[in-house]
């Protein structure tokens, strides 16, 4: 992440150091630039709220199913922490109830249902509540005849909910499948850094069109797991958005500043029918 390490003390309120290019960024520019490094174009992670503010027309987003909050279905605990403690810690840290926000809003004037993941909440992992919110978002889009935009940032399934978490892959794919069969509106996924595991291997990759942010890590297995399995260094750029674009797995790589425009074009499909 961006930090102010090695920044001259007097100046540390003004400057940040980019963890990617290691160069100094003027703080105000960094935030004006939507948390993209103006020097190396590295796209820093956004919180779900930041993403919503960036993507949706000002004040248009209205959250739905905000109240849903996870319970500990397995009685999952380690000597260090119970799952309920983990949840509470993440809720306090992020101010969110769960790892995604869903709602209805407008992107460049085009009304749609949005699913926005927050990686800062337990790595954007998909447990029963995330799965349920995703499912309800599809149902809402279907019943309101609106397009659906899913913005993913997730390490995958939520280990702490065990098999229930794995089963959210089925639940969300079921609903994505229903939407594609019963609606004529578009379903678009915007994959941001990172989108991996059970979220990628379920509804996210089933979209009509897949857009990604530059440099985003996108893959089924994590790079370290792969490295360990194949016992070799991974090729440069492996599992980046650009890598998948080259291989025809995603349709567009769009810089953050152009996302609203591109997404609004895609979700315009069928809007007037």
């Amino acid at each position, binding site marked *: 992440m961006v930090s102010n390490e090695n920044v001259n003390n007097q100046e540390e309120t003004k400057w940040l150091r980019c963890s990617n290019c290691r160069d100094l960024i003027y703080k105000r520019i960094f935030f004006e630039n939507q948390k993209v490094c103006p020097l190396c174009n590295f796209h820093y992670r956004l919180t779900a709220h930041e993403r919503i503010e960036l993507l949706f027309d000002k004040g248009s987003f209205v959250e739905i199913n905000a109240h*849903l909050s*996870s319970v500990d279905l397995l009685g999952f605990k380690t000597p260090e922490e119970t799952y309920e403690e983990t949840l509470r810690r993440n809720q306090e840290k992020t101010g969110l109830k769960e790892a995604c926000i869903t709602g209805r809003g407008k992107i460049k004037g085009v009304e749609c249902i949005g699913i926005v993941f927050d990686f800062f909440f337990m790595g954007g992992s998909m447990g029963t*509540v995330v799965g349920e919110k995703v499912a309800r978002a599809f149902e809402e889009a279907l019943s309101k005849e609106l397009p659906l935009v899913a913005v993913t940032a997730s390490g995958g399934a939520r280990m702490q909910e065990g098999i*229930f978490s794995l089963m959210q892959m089925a639940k969300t794919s*079921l*609903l994505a499948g229903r939407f594609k069969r019963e609606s004529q509106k578009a379903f678009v996924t915007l994959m941001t850094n990172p989108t991996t595991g059970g979220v*990628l291997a379920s509804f996210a990759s089933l979209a009509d069109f897949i857009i990604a942010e530059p440099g985003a890590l996108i893959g*089924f297995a994590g790079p370290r797991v792969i490295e360990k399995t194949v016992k070799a260094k991974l090729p440069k750029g492996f599992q980046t958005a650009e890598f998948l674009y080259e291989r025809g797995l995603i349709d567009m790589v769009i810089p953050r500043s152009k996302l609203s425009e591109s997404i609004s074009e895609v979700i315009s499909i069928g809007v007037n029918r």
Partner: protein
Amino acid sequence: MRRFSYDFETKIIDLEEKLRKVNQLASQNPSFEREVKELERKIENLKKKVYGNPTPWQRVLFSRHPERPKVRDFINALINGFIPVQGDRLFAADNAIVAGIGFFGGREVAVCGTDKGKNTRENLTKNFGMAHPEGYRKCLLVMELAERFKIPFLTFIDTPGAYPGIGAEERGQAWAIARCIEKMLWLQVPTLAIITGEGGSGGAIAIACADRILMLENAYYSVISPEGCASILWHDEKRAEEAAEVLKLTASDLHSFGLVYEVIPEPLGGCHRDPNKIFKRVRESIKKHLDELMVKEIGTILEERHNFYRQIGNIFK
């Protein structure tokens, strides 16, 4: 040749070895028969003690036992006139997936399964039962055949997970798995999944989204391997045994959650100890469930299937 054994069962395997020898002696010299009886009793007691109430981790070990019947053993035992589908007609033939059409009893079925090898050489061609995208796309083809011929779709699952490799990522492992899940959930024929060994995460659920999921008693089905979980929680794969506890991954756990429709009991100490018995039980179980499913209208089947997957884990604050 010394048989394979896990630490906790070494004593049993040793005694069984002795029993075999004493049995040979007894066949020539009846005076040994008493010793045979005694050994048998001893083994029986020990098995009850050691095997009677295995820990989750011990079940994981059973599910991975090298002598455990592999998916193609189940297919060979249960399916007649098996006609294989070789590949995905797109890119490759993935040997980690066995797929085709055949007869179960007098009934035609389409079958897919994740198949492990029985030795190192086989495991190299089968990637230890870890499928590539082309394997899952082979399954998609067979699902289409099932719909085309209006016959039930059966899957046998025994995989540590989908293969985490460079080519697999390049060719869209996640895309292939998602397509499988979606297609199976919308498949217009009755479906049945049997987890016979390892039910490893995304690699397993890809072909497990069936009307009914059956599990062998010592099979496991989990969002992550115990090793992977331990590695994340404690940065220590060796604490897999603890992770196996917290993950609630056994057949009986999953049955109590209402996720698994039926648990098929195994012989004490794992089904590799009596493959024919497990084949028989699996055959009976499949027959029963297919019989029950086949009398339903396909509309009803899909409705029930969708309701089931729609409500999983719906307990919130």
